[in-house]
């Protein structure tokens, strides 16, 4: 199989999949080493960028995905309305706590936000961005929540380690200073 043909196969697979396709899966289908499949994806990504194509290859949620070029969104949006309704502040704050502090219980979330979390947690469960990942061995055995692969996908992250660092505590007062982390 020559290189150009390999790139074409990967492009076809990514187009047909729509969802992020793990390099391992591409390797299985094409009959390659995972490393080689990954290289092909990276080559395709580079080629799309160099040739200023309307599509781009991105790496999200542990896979490669073919997407429209972000700067062309104003045109694409006229064709298809955006996929997800924007989440409210309450939903996003709750999700942020789960993403950075997982596994967490509902009580952990409520302690940080100072308000009830039932509704926000349920909404996030319904959207599939969090899931129950176990129970804490403490009185009442409360449910522990964590983020899902769909979370990574919706926020365009390759993996959890790609989350932007949690902001530090703000510096003290007008003079500024070195607060304890």
């Amino acid at each position, binding site marked *: 199989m020559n290189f150009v043909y390999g790139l074409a196969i990967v492009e076809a697979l990514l187009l047909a999949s729509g969802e992020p396709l793990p390099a391992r899966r591409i390797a299985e289908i094409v009959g390659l080493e995972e490393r080689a499949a990954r290289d092909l994806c990276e080559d395709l990504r580079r080629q799309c960028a160099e040739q200023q194509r309307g599509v781009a290859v991105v790496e999200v949620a542990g896979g490669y995905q073919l997407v429209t070029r972000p700067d062309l969104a104003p045109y694409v949006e006229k064709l298809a309305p955006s996929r997800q309704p924007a989440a409210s502040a309450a939903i996003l704050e709750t999700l942020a706590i789960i993403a950075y502090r997982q596994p967490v219980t509902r009580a952990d979330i409520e302690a*940080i936000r100072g308000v009830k979390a039932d509704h926000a947690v349920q909404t996030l469960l319904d959207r599939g961005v969090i899931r129950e990942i176990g129970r804490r061995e403490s009185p009442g055995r409360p449910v522990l929540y964590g983020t899902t692969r769909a979370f990574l996908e919706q926020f365009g992250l390759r993996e959890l380690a790609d989350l932007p660092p949690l902001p530090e505590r703000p510096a*003290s*007062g007008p003079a500024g200073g070195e607060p304890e982390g």
Partner: protein
Amino acid sequence: MSLQLKLQNFEGPLDLLLHLIERDELDIYDIPIAEITEQYLGYLADIDSVDLDRAAEFLVMAATLCEIKAKMLLPREQQPAPAAGETLEDPLDPRAELVARLLEYSRFKQASQALADLAARRGLQFPPQGEPVEPPGGKPLGDADLDRLIAAFAALLKRRGPLPAREIEPETVSVQSRMAELEELLAESPAGRLRFSALFPPDAPGALIVVTFLALLELIRWRKIRVWQAEALGEIELQARLEGEA
């Protein structure tokens, strides 16, 4: 009078307090508690407009603020006043716990903004439209189609006919262990798919069939598997969900 935001605009008491601190450019490590308590209470004027649960959350904070304010008036052991720029680490300061909560909350409030930015950026990337090729043709049945699953189960029992008379052996299979078995079965089958009928061989004992069906419902409830039907009245198929799949 500057623009006064209403109570409904705040996510909760901590959000309101942070707003007051930022608006007046106060030092979060040295909050003038009397001043902020007064302002906070001012906002509670329109507490009628929020629901009871939220009202309770705001009121608890009001009580906390008043308590801190009272404690601040009491004499306490002399601590060196924190120099400008120094953190409020004095655990005896009545404000210490509140400050710690405010700081922690503000970190996640900022983080949630970062998440919103990520989502917005991701929203500019449109994946190919249309039916994904990966799952077999057909749409996944929604939760509402439990009826169809039950109908399939009923049809299966009917096809099976009455049980022949025989000695009854105690069954020891639990729903839990059957769930684990089903998951294994799905994992081993090609493309992680199984036909609904394959789970119910004609010679399976009645109890096993019931336990299998219950295990199936449990797995659906826990979003471990998805149920497919390629066409109306077609064979129902089961497929293991990838971790985190929506």
